[in-house]
């Protein structure tokens, strides 16, 4: 009886340990890290893997997939209104023959566009995050702050066919768009971390 109990306790402890490890790995994997690089605050998220699921399927079909990322600085976590923020838009595509990714950062003006190609999925993800910067001058120097990353995929099918169809504004498609569950239609990653102090960030990656 006592041996059986001991075995049960061992199994329970092992399961608990495994779950704790998996949870810790998951936490670390999705942790938003920040560091200062010259005049910019840069972010990174090890193994974020946003090129997966539906966006990856569409990329491998040869379509262009757009992502919009926003980095926000606030005094409290998950603030509704940010003290400072920067937005970047990325267009990704997958080379059908070379089986590699290409990314273009789309700026306000055509001349501000930047493109990089022949990337693996992970390299493409890293390039996007590395180009999501915020100007150092916008960071508060006298108080701690929180950093938030909001990254989402833009679905072209959401907006097509609503306006300009024969018949004017298509209410059916508008209802479909608004009633579709946001999680399945538009993949989104929302990560927070902090508080950070600018003096600590000089020492390297913080998370």
């Amino acid at each position, binding site marked *: 009886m006592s041996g059986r109990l001991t075995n049960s306790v061992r199994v329970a402890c092992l399961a608990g340990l495994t779950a704790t490890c998996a949870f810790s790995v998951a936490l670390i994997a999705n942790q938003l890290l920040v560091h200062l690089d010259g005049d910019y605050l840069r972010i990174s998220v090890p193994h974020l893997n946003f090129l997966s699921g539906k966006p990856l399927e*569409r990329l491998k*079909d*040869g*379509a*262009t997939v*757009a992502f919009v990322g926003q980095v926000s600085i606030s005094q409290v976590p998950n603030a509704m209104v940010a003290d400072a923020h920067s937005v970047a*838009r990325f*267009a990704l*595509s*997958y*080379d*059908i*023959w070379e089986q590699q990714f*290409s990314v*273009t950062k*789309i700026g306000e003006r055509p001349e501000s*566009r930047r*493109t990089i*190609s022949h990337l693996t999925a992970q390299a493409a993800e890293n390039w996007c995050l590395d180009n999501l910067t915020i100007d150092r001058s916008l960071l508060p120097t006298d108080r701690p702050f929180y950093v938030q990353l909001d990254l989402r995929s*833009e679905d*072209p*099918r*959401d*907006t*097509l*066919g*609503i*306006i*300009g*169809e*024969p*018949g*004017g*504004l*298509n*209410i*059916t*498609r*508008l*209802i479909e768009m608004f009633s579709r569950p946001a999680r399945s239609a538009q993949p989104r990653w929302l990560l927070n971390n902090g508080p950070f102090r600018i003096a600590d960030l000089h020492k390297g990656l913080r998370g």
Partner: protein
Amino acid sequence: MGMRRAKAASMFSLGLSVSLVFLLSSSTLLFAGQSFLRAAAETNVNQRYTIESVSIAGVKVENAKIPLSLRRRMTALVGERCDTTMLEDLAGDLRRQLHFQAVNHHLSKGSEPGRIRVNFDVIRKDVGFDLSVPKFLYSSSQGWTGEVDASTHVREHEFTVGAINNGDTLPERFSGVTARYEDSRVGSDRVRFGIAFENLHEQWSDQARAAATGEAELYRTRRNIAPELTVAVAKNVTVSAGMSFEQLDSQSANTRSANALTGEIHYGSKIEGGTAQQMVDAKYSVRVGVPKLGSDYSYSRHMVTLRYEVKSGRQSASDEFLGGMAEGDAPLFERFVLGNSSTLRGWDAAAIAPLGANRVAHNSLTWGYQMGEGTAEVFYDAGALWRTGRPAPMRHSLGLGYRQKMFFMTMAFPITEGRMSPVFMAGMIY
């Protein structure tokens, strides 16, 4: 009772205002999204490859049962560079014309490096019908105008029922229900057949009632059945011919028929130049009331519209002319009107001619400058509305506005002697 009506009317106005704000704000966001996604599509790395073949739902385009115009466009892709923006446009047209829920293009490796195959995957609709708003308009002088249509498709057959409340296009405000059937392919892609039904109730302004005394009999309801055949005789030209069987119930309970033969010729063309893009649109329509068809009215009505637009860079200019004449004893709904959302903007139609008139000439000159996703515009309208043998006073109006595709906001100033009252208009017209 009066209080309750006033409350209901104010709730209705509030509801319409909220709807308008929602539609305008949604459209602004959607236009911004479309522009970004189009810019994104232009960066696709597969654009350097040549298209080897095109298929739809796995069936080669040569064997697919699709309209000729779509087949030609799809066939023309073979041998060309893979322009993903064009593929997106084509997918949209396939979805629209074949009534699918979604059409997505899928690229795969071709028979040799540098060549790719395109397949359009299709998803059929879950819901069998569409709800749309072809017209939605608010004018601070003439109130609300709106149309809602529900339509369903079976292959090339389209059935539509709609509700309408319109105070913008005729001397009277009319409201009621409409129904339409259209076969977009009668034996050939070039021939279309449609039949429309309307059951409308009319509301006349006090000015119209006063003007009608001793001159014309006002009607309170109108029913119409109008079959029409349209043939695409050339790439840019269509010709339509049909009939209109209309019954009018007058205020004094008399019923009169206004049956007519109808016809229309339409020409539309787009000329792409090096730096400028030009668009020409011309239309001539005729309606002839024929006693042999059982009509109590004997008349003919002719109308011409010409529109020319040129765009270069951020700037655009357009000129639109409207001319019309009606001869004989035409019913009131056949009369011309000026002073609405598209002619002599800012003027009150009822103040110009409460029952309309049988002669019209109007010109509208617009200059636009693209700002963001939309276009800021200034316009100058000039026109005359008169009756045969009477003077034709010319009226003018100026205004400015902002337009994003079919959505617009306008502030119009009628040029009159004395006090000038600006009129605000907003809405969407397809």
